[in-house]
């Protein structure tokens, strides 16, 4: 088995196991009146570690899995997680962030985007009950929980991907500036050319 295939498999298993832990465990523990949502964190971490293509694919896979397993409206999570994974991957490709707190900021942004986007889509699809303004508080609480959990989730994803614990997973000294829009920055694609 080639290295990119093995990496893709490891990340796929990581995504599925994390989604199961989310559904069977994390979703049943209310903190600050809401439940933490790991799915945007997982997708953002994969995007940050592996690039925009794998990030978008992970977003689609994790989103579909969650929608199918929870009998939610099919495609709604995938529709939101695909851009999140892609954007995280693009951040890696364009900015090459090295700060250790990048996953925290990215996790918070991904959680906020997912929670707010979910609300907007749900409102567009129609909600048959009054919507309280407190839903904004819930979105902020989910964002805060996402920020708290982002670093451990990213560290776990980096370990699964077989990389160190820095922002994009590679040791800092081996990093070098990347060109814009080369598209070949993902370990899935670079390894294949070796």
């Amino acid at each position, binding site marked *: 088995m080639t290295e990119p295939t093995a990496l893709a498999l490891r990340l796929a298993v990581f995504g599925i196991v994390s989604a199961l832990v989310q559904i069977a465990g994390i979703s049943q523990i209310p903190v600050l009146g809401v439940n933490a949502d790991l799915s945007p964190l997982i997708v953002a971490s994969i995007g940050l570690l592996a690039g925009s293509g794998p990030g978008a694919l992970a977003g689609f896979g994790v989103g579909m899995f969650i929608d199918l397993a929870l009998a939610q409206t099919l*495609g709604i999570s995938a529709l939101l997680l695909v851009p999140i994974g892609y954007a995280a991957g693009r951040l890696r490709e364009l900015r090459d962030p090295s700060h250790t707190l990048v996953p925290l900021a990215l996790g918070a942004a991904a959680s906020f985007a997912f929670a707010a986007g979910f609300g907007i889509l749900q409102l567009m699809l129609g909600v048959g*009950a*009054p919507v309280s303004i407190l*839903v904004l508080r819930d979105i902020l609480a989910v964002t805060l929980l996402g920020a708290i959990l982002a670093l451990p989730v990213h560290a776990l994803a980096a370990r699964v991907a077989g990389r160190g614990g820095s922002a994009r997973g590679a040791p800092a000294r081996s990093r070098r500036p990347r060109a814009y829009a080369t598209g070949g920055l993902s370990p899935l694609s670079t390894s294949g050319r070796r």
Partner: protein
Amino acid sequence: MPDKRVRRRRAVLGGLVGLSLILLTAYVGESLGGPFHSLQRGVVAVLTPIQDGASRVLKPARDLVSWVGDTLHAKSENAQLKKQRDQLLRQTVGARAAQAENRQLKALVGLDGASGLGRYGTVAARVIGRSPTVWYSTLEIDKGSGDGIHAGQPVVSGAGLVGKVTQTTGSSAIVTLISDHTSGVAAKVLDRAGDPGIVVPQVGTPGSLLIQTLPPRANVRAGDPVVTAGTRSARYPSLFPPNIPIGTITTVSADELSLSQQAHLAPVVDLRRLDFVQILTRPAAGATAQAAR
């Protein structure tokens, strides 16, 4: 070469977003028996044993986190409970007299005194999964059509109403909670007039419900219990048997009551912390009895 990669990357993004939109549109447009709903039921059936195992394995961790949270809230809750205890003690004295009176009246009209839920054919189930968002208040339980569970059956916990079954597979079912935006329950307030209304959720506040369409001159007060109304008209039978506790009125504003004909209530069941529930597999027993009266 880079252009080709850029195009491919954008094509992947566009393709996946497009596919998600197509799936979303098709899913919303199809009926419950459609291919995507069937696929969903199939996946739920396959994942049920895995989720069940994961739920059991993760229970100690869930309990630990819940214990920490509960301990932090214990002090404030203690003072509140003491206040409630004093209030309940006063109410108990009146309730005992009313209970004795009730027994006598029931004997007079020849009604069966047993009001437990056992007659509805209860089936106990373990909660093995739940949705993380505030927009979907659903649970997954480890009992399904193989155990006599069908869509539309009411779900209760020890304290009161939880929701209803909305989808089933052979070994699992999806329960939509009364805090879900699609839920609406015919209810009555146990005040002097027994004012009827419909209990609906308030999205964003899972710890609070609304009772709407109250009569304009309803004399509802904070502390009044709210229970299911059961079937009031044979033309529109209710899924829920009568007199299952739903919650207690928390806030009544005169303006809100006269303008919107609604009041706020707190559910008796902590819908965010449910490990076991009961499904009423013969709810019609209660509905029929109510309709016959």
